[in-house]
């Protein structure tokens, strides 16, 4: 029997991933390189924050303790957040932003494809909704990876630097936590290790086409899914949760 607690934690992980990355993207508002890209990044942010709401609502429902989506987003501290580390890294430059988007999004879409058939019906339903949106985001980031990777010497260098920095954070996608192992064994969620190969192949081909080279070093970062974060998450939460912490219960 799977404890609700494990499903709850997993749904929180999905919610936190979307919220934190959505927040990072929202930092581009008013700073995009052109008006069109400014609009694009904020649209991506809106979708992700919207998706996180769906998952927080679902998590609150599973927990059944009267906490709301807002309580979960605004009143948990760093160690309670379950997002992948890659989502919380500072926004960096435009190359870093579109490449992170691609790496995360290509993993997430692959994962959601497999989550569609989960025996936990609601997980499959939400995956279907998010998948449609993420596939469109994916096209956006691939366009830019090609354009910058194959663009000028400077744009290519920026993309390569971003890849060197980001690649070690992708290993975390494929390392299930102990709690996830239980859900995998119960066939509630796909085994992230199984989708590694497909992800790797499609990723490598997109990057190669943009003349980018995947770094060979085998060092990696992990821990986000278990609440061990980089120092960056604290700053995001300080900004994001400030109002709710200062004026508890304040509503729009």
């Amino acid at each position: 029997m799977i404890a609700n607690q494990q499903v709850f934690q997993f749904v929180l992980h999905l919610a936190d991933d979307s919220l934190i990355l959505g927040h990072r993207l929202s930092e581009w508002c008013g700073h995009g390189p052109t008006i069109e890209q400014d609009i694009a990044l904020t649209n991506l942010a809106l979708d992700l924050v919207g998706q996180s709401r769906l998952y927080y609502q679902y998590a609150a429902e599973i927990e059944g303790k009267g906490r709301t989506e807002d309580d979960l987003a605004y009143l948990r501290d760093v160690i309670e957040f379950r997002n992948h580390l890659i989502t919380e890294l500072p926004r960096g430059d435009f190359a870093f932003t579109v490449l992170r988007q691609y790496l995360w999004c290509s993993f997430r879409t692959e994962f959601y494809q497999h989550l569609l058939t989960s025996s936990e019906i609601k997980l499959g339903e939400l995956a279907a909704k998010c998948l449609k949106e993420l596939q469109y985001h994916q096209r956006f980031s691939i366009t830019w990876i090609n354009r910058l990777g194959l663009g000028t010497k400077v744009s290519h260098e920026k993309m390569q630097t971003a890849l060197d920095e980001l690649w070690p954070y992708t290993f975390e996608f494929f390392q299930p936590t102990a709690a996830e192992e239980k859900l995998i064994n119960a066939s509630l969620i796909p085994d992230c290790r199984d989708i590694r190969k497909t992800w790797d192949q499609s990723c490598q081909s997109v990057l190669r086409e943009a003349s980018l080279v995947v770094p060979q070093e085998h060092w990696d970062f992990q821990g986000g899914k278990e609440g061990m974060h980089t120092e960056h998450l604290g700053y995001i939460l300080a900004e994001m949760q400030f109002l709710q912490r200062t004026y508890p219960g304040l509503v729009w």
Partner: protein
Amino acid sequence: MVTREDRVRQILLRVMDPEIPVISVVDLGIIHKIKSVDGAIEVQVMPTYSGCPATDYIPQLIAKALRKEGYVEVKVINVNFPVWGTDRITSEGRRLLKEYGIAPPKVGGTPDCPQCGANDVEQISQFGSTPCKSLFRCRECLEPFEYFKCH
């Protein structure tokens, strides 16, 4: 025979999308079900994009319109499944979009310019003023236009 659900649908035909005020929630295809349960009316709405700010607003507009028409017990809920898609926009909805200057979604190929009908168009941006639109320019009449993305 006109059912209670039909009458509700007629009212909803006059509830416009807040961001594209020429198309009703019915023609936008976001009304999943209208149920009459023990005298109460329940309307199930399929939100468009997760990031659409109107997601919470539209149910309020629907409830308000129904109450104004005398329905007392009204419940409007968002359902995330089935997932809304642009194939749910009615043919009347597509006509209204075009008339308003927004190219309706087209499966495969590029949209036709809503001003002159030409297909020689280029994309300016994959995203637009609302989550559901992208931006194009017509190379024939040189007018920029919005395109309701296929979703």
